[in-house]
């Protein structure tokens, strides 16, 4: 059993499941408010407990976090406690009032989802007409206010070919760009997931963009599910991959107080609820997050079982692995694995 002291350095808090969009790839199937969402008082206590655990960054996510009237109370409280706060929005509600509040909060980042280079593709993916234009307006408002702004693009079969259009739009705007792969959780259908070849094409695109543009011109990365251990491409993630961090340095809090290592995981990975048990106790319990805390090489499955990087990699993204294979440590969307197949063809 693990005897280490773990710190949830980065925490994602789904403040509400209420959402004003209906994105085809939403992993939380957001839309309607979740029953019994945390109250303002409970949310503030959560921030204090996270501070006690050593958290450095809390990302306020949804649904759409700006639909909660008390979002700014949480954000200010997080900052007052000395932690960083990121707000992850779809960009639909951002206006001058929100911008002036954000300026006071001084967030680590404000992220906006942009899922197409054209209005047709973005609006179809997000399920809301005119959302593309609102998204672009929000990006303009954020950058004019000198707020640290990020675009997150979730790629699938229907939008990945528009990455060059999005890139051309983002160059020299001072906006960071994170590209992540849609995985079949929530309402996203497996049929729209990228093929392994398409996945590799996106990885080449990211590597090429990093080669052709400076960090100042285009700060671009592949998210945590764009790895691992390629022998042909450079690392395209921000950091080296040292295995899934759910329950090690990362934690997710559902809007009703459920605690998970990562919010993309199914409910069977809920470790407890902060209404029934103290968050600090849940985090420090010997049996919590055992899939990662007590991981051994023997837990690897599929092609990862015999991989020389398996022990350090832990079989890639836990969510991709469980959603595609039903196993915990065997993510088949792996650059190293695809390259091995490529060379054996």
């Amino acid at each position, binding site marked *: 059993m693990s005897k280490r002291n773990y710190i949830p350095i980065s925490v994602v808090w789904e403040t509400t499941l209420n959402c004003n969009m209906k994105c085809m790839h939403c992993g939380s199937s957001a839309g309607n408010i979740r029953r019994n969402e945390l109250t303002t008082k409970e949310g503030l206590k959560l921030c204090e407990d996270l501070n006690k655990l050593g958290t450095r960054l809390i990302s306020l996510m949804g649904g759409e976090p700006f639909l909660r009237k008390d979002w700014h109370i949480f954000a200010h409280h997080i900052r007052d406690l000395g932690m960083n706060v990121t707000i992850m929005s779809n960009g639909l509600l951002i206006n001058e009032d929100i911008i002036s509040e954000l300026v006071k909060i001084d967030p680590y980042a404000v992220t906006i989802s942009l899922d197409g280079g054209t209005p047709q593709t973005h609006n179809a993916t997000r399920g809301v007409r005119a959302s593309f234009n609102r998204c672009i307006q929000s990006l303009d408002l954020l950058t004019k206010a000198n707020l640290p702004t990020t675009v997150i693009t979730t790629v699938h079969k229907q939008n990945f070919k528009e990455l060059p259009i999005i890139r051309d739009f983002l160059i020299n705007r001072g906006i960071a760009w994170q590209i992540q792969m849609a995985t079949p959780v929530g309402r996203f259908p497996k049929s729209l997931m990228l093929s392994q*070849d398409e996945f590799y094409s996106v990885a080449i*695109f990211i590597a090429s963009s990093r080669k052709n543009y400076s960090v100042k011109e285009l700060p671009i990365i592949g998210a945590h599910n764009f790895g691992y251990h390629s022998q042909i491409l450079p690392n395209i993630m921000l950091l080296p991959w*040292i*295995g899934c961090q759910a329950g090690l340095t990362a934690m997710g809090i559902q809007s009703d107080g459920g605690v998970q290592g990562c919010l993309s995981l199914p409910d069977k990975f809920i470790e407890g609820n902060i209404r029934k048990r103290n968050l600090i106790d849940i985090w420090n319990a010997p049996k919590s997050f055992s899939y990662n805390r007590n991981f051994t090489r023997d837990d690897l499955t599929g092609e990862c079982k015999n991989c020389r990087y398996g022990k350090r990699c832990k079989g890639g993204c836990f969510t991709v692995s469980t959603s595609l294979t039903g196993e915990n440590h065997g993510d088949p969307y792996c650059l190293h694995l695809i390259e091995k197949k490529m060379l054996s063809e």
Partner: protein
Amino acid sequence: MNARTKKINTKLTKLGQTLGLDETDTLRAKRTTKNIVTLALLTGAFMLLGHLMMPGGPVGLYYTGVSTKDFQILFGGFF
């Protein structure tokens, strides 16, 4: 150029074309010695950081939405 490299380059060029990359752009995207050394150094730094912050084993660092601040050396303002 050996057969293995040729095979890789051919496949890479084909995959790059899917997103409008020409052969030169695609092949320039391949990793270099500098990339390998940088990654090794970064891996070492984060494994050491993990040991210092949470004694007992290496840890990485999780991010949900990257920030422009993350592109500064070792997360300007984060630690």
